[in-house]
């Protein structure tokens, strides 16, 4: 009987992390589910659903030598999640502005207040050390309409008029 685990790996980026880790899992009979793998600030980060027939400590022991070799922190949790439970995002929000502390916190606070559930969010810092700018994209599910979301953001935008926020409904053509 296999069980889903959430496997987290983080470490300095180098060539071959994905191939070595996933090959090691494949060779012990693991299946991969949904994953997110990306480079953040020179680190490579992996979060992945792994289906395995044993226990978390066994899986961790299997990966430990390789994680050590690649200098990756590893963390494993048994999870209740399953596949085939996708939620379709209904709204997409893009934000950019001069970088400062609080953009993500303030925008998402306003969104949470109208019940928006974030399904994915990515953000990045561009520009240079003297003039950094912040870019954030998120998708989520909302039960309220577009004007309600826009209204929720209005106070924030009044106080920080240089922030550019785009709110769009995602219209999925289902055939």
């Amino acid at each position, binding site marked *: 009987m296999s069980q889903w685990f959430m496997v987290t790996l983080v470490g300095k980026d180098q060539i071959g992390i994905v191939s070595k880790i996933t090959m090691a899992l494949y060779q012990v009979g693991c299946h991969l589910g949904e994953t997110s793998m990306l480079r953040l600030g020179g680190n490579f980060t992996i979060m992945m659903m792994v289906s395995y027939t044993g226990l978390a400590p066994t899986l961790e022991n299997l990966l430990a030598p390789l994680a050590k070799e690649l200098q990756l922190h590893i963390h494993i949790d048994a999870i209740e999640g399953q596949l*085939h439970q*996708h939620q*379709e995002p209904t709204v*997409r929000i*893009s934000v950019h502005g001069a970088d400062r502390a609080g953009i993500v916190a303030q925008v998402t606070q306003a969104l949470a207040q109208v019940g928006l559930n974030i399904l*994915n969010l*990515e953000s990045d810092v561009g520009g240079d050390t003297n003039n950094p700018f912040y870019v954030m*994209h998120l*998708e989520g599910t909302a039960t309220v309409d577009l004007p309600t979301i*826009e209204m929720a*953001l*209005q106070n924030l*935008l*009044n106080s920080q*008029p240089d*922030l*550019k*926020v*785009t*709110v*769009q409904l*995602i*219209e*999925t*053509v*289902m*055939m």
Partner: protein
Amino acid sequence: MAILKILTYPDPQLKNLAAPVTAFDEDLQTFLVDLEETMRTGPGGVGIAAPQVGRFERIVIVDVSCKSKITHHGRLVLINPEISEWEGFDIGREGCMSVPDYTGNVIRATQIHLVAQDETGTVHEYDMEGYEARAVQHEIDHLDGLLFIDRLVSRRHDLFQRKVYQPKPKN
């Protein structure tokens, strides 16, 4: 009347090239009734192509009239359809009865000119845009053995730019 079985990815038959329809006979009419009934049972139900139910002929039904505030042509039976002109492009999200539990972003023309026969074989021409044009392009792909997942663009890095929300001026 019957609800037909939908082929789902990764069934290799979905890659088959569909043949032109030559006989506009009783059998075709019966099939069209079943095809439309099958379409209407789907989660979106705005379009279906014959290869999705294992009939590899160039037959599509599209009906996006359930969407409000869009221009459309109502219920359309499109036989041997051909897009003769494309204009503009847009990224939009699509889902498909043949690809359950997955949606993705696909680039499609925003306006098309379409030539197609109806169930009697009469030729019609249509100018379509937006949602309806997207649905038709998606369905015609099925006739050529293509699914929307063959045309996916990244979910992560698309820049959607349609409506820019700007702060209201302070009074």
